[in-house]
């Protein structure tokens, strides 16, 4: 597999800040990976994504997107590979209708009208919002708005989607539809997903979890490896998974420690319940 994002010793400090926002970070992300980036507020998660998207320039180190080292001259090309879905669904609409909104990014790139219409329709189909294309985005629910925002990102056919807490303002239904959508998209096409999140349930869907603390990567593992940290997860801004909390309350009955997934826990409990 090839690296779609590669960071080498990247350091960035905000003007007048006393500490580095990212501190000598080196990181490879492979094509088609779904990576969760977690950590407490202020740990450097958003800074990391801004560096990847070239919204800020690193003070030292190198960043490669799809094999190309980004610099001032090629940043605009590199950025075409990346789409960002932000946290607040109300802050990312510019168009008067859903289809205008999805077309916005394409207009920016000077895509021809006929091609544009096709790509907008296709993107809206992918997020199952084609019936809403003439609607005012403001009249949609939170989950629908985020799906339209994702359609706007898909229309530019990026290789990487960055989700910057994109589900944190949604109600449980809205959150579910957005996460289902991402899962389905990845079944149909190659897509690298970088998701900043505080939601432990959401991280369970990803291939890999990267934990940041004070601008450094402190853990990098598959989800189980991270969940096995138990109560230490709290130091990193994550809750313990729900199943771990239940297992902890039933420590005497289960007689074991460490992370178990839901299916495993239910199985164990049912066995215990039938024995006695």
């Amino acid at each position, binding site marked *: 597999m090839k690296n779609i994002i590669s960071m080498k010793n990247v350091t960035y400090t905000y003007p007048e800040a006393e500490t580095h926002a990212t501190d000598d970070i080196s990181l490879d992300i492979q094509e088609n990976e779904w990576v969760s980036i977690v950590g407490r507020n202020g740990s450097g998660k958003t800074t990391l994504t801004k560096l990847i998207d070239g919204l800020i320039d690193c003070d030292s180190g190198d960043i490669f997107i799809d094999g190309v080292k980004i610099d001032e001259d090629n940043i605009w090309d590199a950025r075409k590979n990346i789409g960002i879905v932000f946290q607040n669904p109300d802050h990312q609409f510019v168009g008067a209708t859903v289809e205008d909104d999805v077309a916005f990014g394409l207009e920016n790139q000077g895509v021809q009208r006929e091609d544009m219409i096709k790509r907008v329709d296709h993107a809206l189909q992918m997020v199952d919002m084609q019936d809403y294309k003439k609607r005012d985005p403001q009249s949609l629910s939170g*989950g629908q708005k985020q799906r339209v925002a994702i359609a706007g990102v898909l229309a530019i056919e990026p290789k990487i989607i960055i989700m910057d807490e994109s589900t944190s303002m949604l109600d449980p239904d809205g959150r579910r539809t957005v996460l289902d959508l991402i899962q389905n998209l990845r079944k149909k096409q190659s897509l690298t997903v970088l998701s900043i999140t505080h939601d432990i349930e959401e991280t369970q869907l990803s291939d890999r979890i990267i934990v940041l603390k004070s601008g450094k990567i402190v853990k990098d593992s598959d989800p189980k490896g991270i969940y096995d940290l138990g109560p230490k997860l709290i130091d990193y*801004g994550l809750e313990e998974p729900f199943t771990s909390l239940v297992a902890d309350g039933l420590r005497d009955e289960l007689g074991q420690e460490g992370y178990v997934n839901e299916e495993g826990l239910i199985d164990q409990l*049912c066995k215990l*319940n039938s024995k006695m």
Partner: protein
Amino acid sequence: MQIEFKNVTHSYESNNPLSGLGLADVSCKIEDKAFTAIVGKTGSGKSTLVRHINALLKPTSGEIKVGDRVITPETNNKNLKPLRKQVGMVFQFPESQLFEDTVEKDIMFGPKNFGIPEEEAREAAHKMIKVVGLSEDYLDRSPFDLSGGQMRRVAIAGVLASDPETIILDEPTAGLDPVGRKEIMDLFKEQQQNGKTIILITHNMDDVANYAETMMVMHDSRLRAVGTPKDIFNDQDLLDKKLISLPQSAVFAQKLAKKNFKFESLPITINELTAEIKQQIHGE
């Protein structure tokens, strides 16, 4: 201070036909000194409901009683300050409303606006910054140099500094990390224990189960149910109509119930869940 809604309807005066009714014939009592959670989908009328409590919105028909004060469609905008001092409101993303050049001035703005003398307001700022979990060192800093979570705390301190009797919270923890969220929720619980009335709008059903005494369910601008979280989360009709979602413990119990466990009523917190499981494993 008891709050009572009597047949309150609110229609947004707008050219956009999609906005329509914000509230439809809502009647309810919100008990003094209680912790009440309001749930419902985006656009169900939760925010419209609470904005009537401090007269940010006025009813199109019906009336709202807040203590002795009665708000009707005829209520004019004069003399609302005493009401707004009694009812503090923390909006979604309150940090976007910070504007002063120091944290101290920002926290003092509310109390001063309500006519509290400068020195008292300053004392309140020094007290409240600690209540929200920041040290007094932060008072001299610019609010814009703080992290998102710290800004949120400063904004909350600003509301607490006016010493309101009722605190309305519109998704106060959205975007905070879980540790920050728990600290902020515990802070509000503590405020309730100190005699404040807390009204919380939230999508987080675990927070409802863990903190609230009463739960109100909004749907399509109507108040569809009021009760204890335990009763509401066990209301099959509400669940069938998908008007509420369940806390994690209840979802897990449902899965166990499909196997060889039986729950008379769904547990809604982890403690209730593990106690029930233990009892069943060890036999009654």
